[in-house]
């Protein structure tokens, strides 16, 4: 795989501040202690990104709408020939805020605004995202009303597991959003101490997978996932198929630690300017935008090189995987959780181990 000269996409956390305290937030604890960069520093960084050919920026946080200079920053991206999207909790979106997107090319260059909705009612949603349901739904409805490009994300967790059908109905039928993405609460950031409260157990994961399977049939093409139960269900089905037929999928590298592709496509930036490979690896600090050369980091940083070389490690040679019947078909999944949970990104993500999943869920009468 030829490495791009510079990534086409990146996530930028423009702030560590947020008006909410979600129970699984990545952006918590030690992260919020880092100071936000001032406007001028971000603007000159955007000039550099423009020079290097960055095409798409995902503006994230924290909560981007808490920054009073948000639109100045967006204009900086636009002036440097980029498109952008915004990840938001939706609670600060009102008519005034949306009117600001109508200025200049702000609306034209907007790919989407993504809002997180975790339940069909305040009772469920607010368990993981306290005090935010009504405002988030109001923000979502406003985006719909004003025909903004948008995305909705459900983070599947222990609180909303049995409310997924209602949540899908609320979003896809009652409110009428075109599609909904799902993932699951992971033990990163404050998801670590809160793991027992939010992260699904293997048996709950199985319930979530079955539910998502039903929902996908009910709402064809309208539920998407690149991680979480729905994505894992698809991956496991492909592993089963490959093992049965002996034909491996070419969609992703089976039998090697190939996940994931992010390190070939993007870089992420924390709100204090720290450069990281991905927000799932927030403590692998590659440098800072105020002091380091982005091009050199992208091309030569030893951590990025090591992450990219991970794909040459055969699953059969990975400690703990040598005797696994799935090791020709597995790809070890996201290195972020392996790093977070085991302290080594050259190991498979323990939460996605199919062998363990089968053991943990065997004899489970799936109640879903």
């Amino acid at each position, binding site marked *: 795989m*030829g*490495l*791009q*000269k510079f990534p*086409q996409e990146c996530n930028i956390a423009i702030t560590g501040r947020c008006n909410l305290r979600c129970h699984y937030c990545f952006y918590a604890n030690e992260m919020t202690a880092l100071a936000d960069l001032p406007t001028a520093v971000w603007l000159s960084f955007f000039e550099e990104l423009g020079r290097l*050919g960055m*095409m798409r920026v995902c503006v994230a946080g924290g909560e981007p709408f808490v920054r009073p200079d948000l639109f100045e920053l967006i204009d900086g991206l636009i002036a440097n020939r*980029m*498109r952008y999207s915004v990840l938001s909790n939706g609670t600060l979106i009102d008519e005034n805020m949306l009117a600001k997107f109508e200025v200049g090319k702000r609306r034209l260059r907007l*790919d989407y605004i993504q809002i997180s909705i975790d339940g069909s009612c305040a009772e469920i949603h607010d368990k993981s995202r306290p005090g935010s349901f009504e405002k988030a739904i109001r923000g979502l409805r406003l985006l719909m009303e004003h025909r903004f490009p948008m995305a909705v994300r459900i983070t599947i967790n222990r609180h909303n597991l049995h409310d997924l059908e209602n949540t899908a109905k609320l979003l896809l039928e009652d409110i009428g959003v075109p599609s909904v993405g799902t993932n699951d609460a992971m033990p990163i950031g404050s998801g670590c101490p809160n793991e027992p409260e939010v992260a699904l157990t293997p048996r709950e994961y199985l319930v979530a997978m079955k539910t998502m399977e039903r929902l996908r049939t009910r709402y064809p093409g309208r539920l998407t996932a690149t991680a979480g139960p729905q994505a894992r269900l698809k991956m496991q089905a492909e592993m089963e198929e490959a093992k049965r037929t002996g034909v491996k999928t070419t969609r992703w590298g089976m039998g090697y630690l190939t996940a994931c592709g992010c390190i070939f496509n993007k870089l992420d930036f924390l709100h204090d300017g720290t450069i990281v490979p991905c927000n799932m690896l927030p403590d692998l600090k590659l440098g800072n935008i105020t002091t380091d050369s982005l091009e050199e980091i992208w091309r030569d940083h030893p951590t990025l090189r090591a992450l990219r070389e991970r794909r040459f490690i055969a699953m059969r040679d990975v400690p703990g995987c040598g005797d696994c019947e799935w090791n020709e078909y597995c790809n070890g999944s996201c290195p972020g959780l392996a790093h977070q949970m085991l302290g080594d990104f050259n190991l498979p993500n323990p939460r996605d181990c199919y062998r363990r999943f089968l053991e943990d869920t065997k004899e489970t009468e799936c109640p879903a």
Partner: protein
Amino acid sequence: MGIDVTPATVLRRNPDVVLREEDTDGALLFNPDTNQIRVLNATGLFVWKFMDGTRDLGAVVASFRESFEEVPQEVEAHALAFAGEMAAAGFLHPTDSPQA
């Protein structure tokens, strides 16, 4: 579908379009206003770089012939088709007359 261009047409690059010259995969153009991408081969890249509003397409093709050996006859037709399509997609803007 392209717009009609002739060797006398003068076009200039849309200044909002991003050119990424990749090491291995050639070049790529990105129009952030329309979210469109075009992949350029060597000929396309050469033509793109000359589209600065100072010369017409005939002059661009002549420069191409001067810069490369054994240029096939149909290069002009290809360059015109390419330029027409790029103009229709907003990557290039027509100008009334060459700009100094």
